[in-house]
């Protein structure tokens, strides 16, 4: 990151701290509908999928065989009937597993468009879906495609065909991230912005194609939180981005688009270690507007009050989970 001088006034610092402390106190569990990266139907990561395809090069990975969706405790599902090709009256769809019960039931022709929310799951586990014709009976577990949190399930009832289109439903997993405790990271729209920041930084592309990007969190009286995320604002290069700020700026977040242990063009011939120097360059630590750096795996906040000799034990480090939740990670015994 490259610094650009900005303006700073005592008045702004005062209002900033009041907004942040207010937010810290009122942070609540927020439904999360952003699409986390690299997790597919059965909880596979993209690396898992690559391994799967490598092992079974002729087949389409997972689509023909996955019949369950993984849930964590507290997850709910939003089910919507997309289409039907059945004759049941009633035609019934049931869900089994950590959420169970009747999803929909009625004349086959009337089911499309029906939406129902079920859950939350009391414990972690899986769910599967089956369709039942009032005469032909229940079919096998439906086939699941898609990736977290959006799935499609095709089902056959007991009629005996094998096209898995008697009832087709979409299933969205509605999950909750526990608050991280950080006022910025817990903003309702921050997770989706983080996801977008990683995507525009091309973290899933070859290292040579990646770029740092930056975004600001600014005062916004029209937002319930009093803040909003401006994105995207700053486009950088593979090893740095120039940031700027003004009086409305509350925080600055920029990407370090590299995974831990990866040979990056910025560190070659040696691998990148995200948490060195507390996760940021000396320039990162010098930004006066609540600076953060974000990698695909971690978010670090830099407190300018921390002495240079103590930066290595930066305690504001948050691990990014596979669901794009942020969990504060305390690896230092003296915290």
């Amino acid at each position, binding site marked *: *990151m490259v610094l650009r001088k900005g303006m700073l006034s005592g008045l702004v610092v005062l209002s900033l701290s009041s907004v942040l402390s207010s937010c810290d106190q009122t942070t609540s569990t927020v439904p999360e509908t952003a699409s986390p990266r690299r997790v597919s139907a059965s909880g596979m990561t993209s690396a898992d999928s690559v391994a799967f395809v490598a092992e079974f090069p002729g087949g389409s990975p997972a689509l023909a065989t996955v019949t369950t969706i993984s849930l964590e405790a507290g997850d709910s599902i939003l089910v919507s009937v997309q289409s039907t090709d059945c004759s049941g009256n009633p035609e019934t769809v049931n869900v089994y597993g950590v959420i169970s019960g009747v999803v929909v039931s009625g004349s086959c022709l009337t089911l499309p468009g029906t939406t129902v929310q079920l859950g939350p799951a009391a414990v972690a586990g899986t769910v599967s879906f089956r369709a039942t014709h009032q005469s032909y009976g229940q079919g096998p577990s439906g086939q699941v495609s898609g990736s977290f949190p959006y799935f499609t399930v095709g089902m056959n009832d007991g009629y005996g065909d094998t096209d898995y289109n008697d009832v087709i439903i979409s299933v969205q997993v509605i999950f909750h991230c526990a608050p991280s405790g950080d006022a910025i990271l817990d903003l309702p729209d921050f997770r989706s912005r983080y996801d977008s920041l990683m995507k525009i930084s091309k973290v899933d592309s070859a290292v040579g194609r990646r770029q740092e990007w930056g975004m600001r969190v600014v005062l916004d009286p029209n937002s319930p939180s009093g803040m909003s995320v401006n994105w995207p604002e700053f486009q950088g290069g593979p090893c740095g981005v120039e940031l700027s700020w003004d009086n409305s700026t509350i925080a600055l977040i920029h990407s370090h688009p590299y995974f831990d242990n990866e040979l990056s063009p*910025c*560190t070659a011939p*040696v691998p990148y*270690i995200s948490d060195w120097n507390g996760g940021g360059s000396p320039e990162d630590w010098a930004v006066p507007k609540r600076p953060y750096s974000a990698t695909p795996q971690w978010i670090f906040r830099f407190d300018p009050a921390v002495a240079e000799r103590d930066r290595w*034990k930066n305690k504001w480090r948050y691990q990014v989970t596979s669901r794009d939740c942020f969990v504060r990670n305390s*690896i230092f015994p003296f915290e």
Partner: protein
Amino acid sequence: MTIVLIRSWRIAVFAFAVSIIGTKAAAQASLRCRPADNYSANMISNIQWYDTTTNAQAIYKRDSVMHLPVVNAGQVTLVTDERICTKVVDAYTALPNGYTPANLYVIKMGTKGYVSHDPSRKVGEFTVFFVFNTKYVRTGGWGG
């Protein structure tokens, strides 16, 4: 006449001062070891933590990615011996795509080698750290 003498005296003092400063500057310019400061203190503490942590993720990084030698925390010390720093500078020069740092931080890792860092050499906001064995052969390193 008096005025001329005073001027001569001043010129002599000035010339002497310039020669002293010049000698000092020349001596400092030739120093290869960067002196202890907050930056080096932060480096040493960070290395000591990696060498003593019980965190599995950090241990993996240390041993399999950074190839940082494991020594007692007390053996992680800043090198002030110019002969060692000069050898490390030479080792930088000998690396593939190497260059010759003006000076650098060299951290002694007990009897197992050295960690070195040239903070003036940056790629964007990133800097690198090299690990050398006692024969000044690079055996590891990392960037951040």
